[in-house]
């Protein structure tokens, strides 16, 4: 087992972690504030990827696809939040069940619209091929994924820690009634958070498209990874999403390489242990 091999696996783990973080951050944000476990998040990811692909095919520009997908899925998120979830606000279980139903519908509808052949998104020209850094030859696009992951983490952290909106959200996580009583339009904040969370999932779909590809069932596969991330990291916590993504990304890659026989349990084993010892995850407060 050479150093190159280890370095290579480390990069693979970090790339996957970056992608998982993009998805899980929105998921955890929505939960933290609204107590909604949005199981539509996998479907947001898939539909976002398809929308992005369609736009990229039309315009030939990867970044336009990325932005349009984020906007479209963000709006779809608002539509769901305003149009459906609003009627079951405050009732955790009906909300989850509603999102399960929507996930079924969106998954099957995208099969009807985009067909079922696996498709992959062409990355932008300047991100194709690989870069050699020291002993390591690694695809450029994957460096880009890590870059975006870190960028989004930084933006979310600044938003949460340094802005008034962030203060409202942090307060909302701790005591929603108090925030409401202070005269803040909490409904607007809800919609805004749902928009951001959904948009992030749509964006992740386009980001993952070039190396994970899009196909029916990709929604539940990625959702499962996302769920493990937030269970390990703790629902509602940004730090939890970062740490959880790294844990899952690295466990998955190294697990496959070192214990191929157990490739499935390298993810679910630690999760089960976590559930037994600390049901609310590493950073879960609520």
């Amino acid at each position, binding site marked *: 087992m050479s150093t190159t091999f280890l370095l290579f696996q480390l990069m693979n783990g970090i790339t996957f972690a970056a992608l998982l973080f993009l998805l899980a951050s929105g998921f955890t944000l929505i939960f933290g504030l609204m*107590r909604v*476990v949005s199981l539509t998040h996998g479907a947001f990811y898939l539909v976002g990827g398809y929308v992005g692909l369609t736009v990229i095919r039309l315009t030939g520009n990867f970044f336009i696809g990325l932005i349009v997908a984020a906007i479209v899925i963000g709006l779809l998120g608002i539509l769901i939040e305003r149009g*459906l979830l609003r*009627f*079951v606000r405050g009732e*955790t*279980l*009906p909300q*989850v*069940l*509603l999102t*399960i*139903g*929507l*996930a*079924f*519908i*969106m*998954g*099957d*509808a995208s099969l*009807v619209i985009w067909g079922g052949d696996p498709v992959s998104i062409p990355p932008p020209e300047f991100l194709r091929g690989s870069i050699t850094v020291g002993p390591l030859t690694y695809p450029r696009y994957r460096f880009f994924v890590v870059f975006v992951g870190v960028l989004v983490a930084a933006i979310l952290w600044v938003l949460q820690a340094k802005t008034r909106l962030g203060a409202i959200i942090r307060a909302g996580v701790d005591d929603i009634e108090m925030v409401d009583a202070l005269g803040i339009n909490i409904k607007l904040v809800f919609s805004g958070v749902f928009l951001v969370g959904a948009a992030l999932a749509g964006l992740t779909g386009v980001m993952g498209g070039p190396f994970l590809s899009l196909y029916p069932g990709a929604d*539940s596969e990625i959702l*499962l990874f996302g*769920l*493990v991330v937030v*269970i390990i990291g703790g*629902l509602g916590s940004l730090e939890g999403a970062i740490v959880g993504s790294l844990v899952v990304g690295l466990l998955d890659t190294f697990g496959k390489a070192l214990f191929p026989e157990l490739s*499935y*349990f390298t993810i*679910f084993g630690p*999760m*089960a242990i976590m*559930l*037994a010892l600390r*049901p*609310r995850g590493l950073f879960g407060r609520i």
Partner: protein
Amino acid sequence: MTSQRFKLVGLLVLLAFAIGVPQITTSFYVNLVMEIMIFGILAMSIDILAGYCGLTPLGHAGIFGIASYVVGYLITKTTVPLYFTVPLGILASTLVAALFATIAIRTSGVYFLMVTLAEGMIVWGVAYRWASVTGAENGIRGIARPEMVSQYWQYYYVVLVVFIIIAAMMYRLVNSPFGLTLKGIRESESRMRTLGYNVTLHKFIGFTATGFFAGVGGVLYAMYNGFISPSTVEFAKSAEGLLMTIVGGTGTLFGGVIGAAVIILTRNIVSLYTSRWPIIMGTIFVVTILFARKGLLGGVRSLFDRMTQTQPRKPQPKEVKPEAAETINKRTSSQ
């Protein structure tokens, strides 16, 4: 009493119909009714948790399927006689449910949902990866029924009898003092704790009992289909089981059977016109949650109550309670 007599007549008519099914229709519909009863057992066991304990599980297909796997493995790969395999299958489901319960009951609400979802996924993972025992994605085939019930209509009566016994057991459970305590915990956990009830133990027993019931359903299913594969224990099946419970009405017990009938019949009818079943199932989910939260049986009940009496239904359980307890005492003493 009129309402009870009404129910009794209704039950008798249903029973007569159920007995007559193989004589009046084709094997296809007999199989459908069997499927409804088997998944009805699963949906009712989910209801004991969701409707009576206030804990909504999303991994019960896993517990259901464990019994199917154990029975399937023992029948096809060993010479263990049937009167051992069936109890062993049910026991396996019960024990796994007990194990899962120790983790899951420490949580509540949406956490419980996610923990049980993860537990269901672990069962699926084991079914998928432990190839030497489970046959991986191809599953276990050739789970033969005993010779005397090999015909579909013979097996139908087996399923019917087991279904009636299990339904009666569940009915007795939820109306027993134990079941009423569960309801009390659902309403206010802290109050019950203050009153001196061991809340954790009650939840644990409740969860484990559903494992037993689901296991019976799993055994019936393994022999009904003659095979078992990971698709029986996957997430979609757990979600479908929960949907059956909700469509029928949570907290109504028998609503689960109605929910199972609605879902299974709808799936078979729509297959004539469209293959877009996931969209239809998702729509049923959304519509039920938005417009018929009480479910079909729950809706009918409250409608029935509104028509027959002016006061709300609430006080009724108090009447039932002593009677139910008394009946149980009588039965245990007469045995």
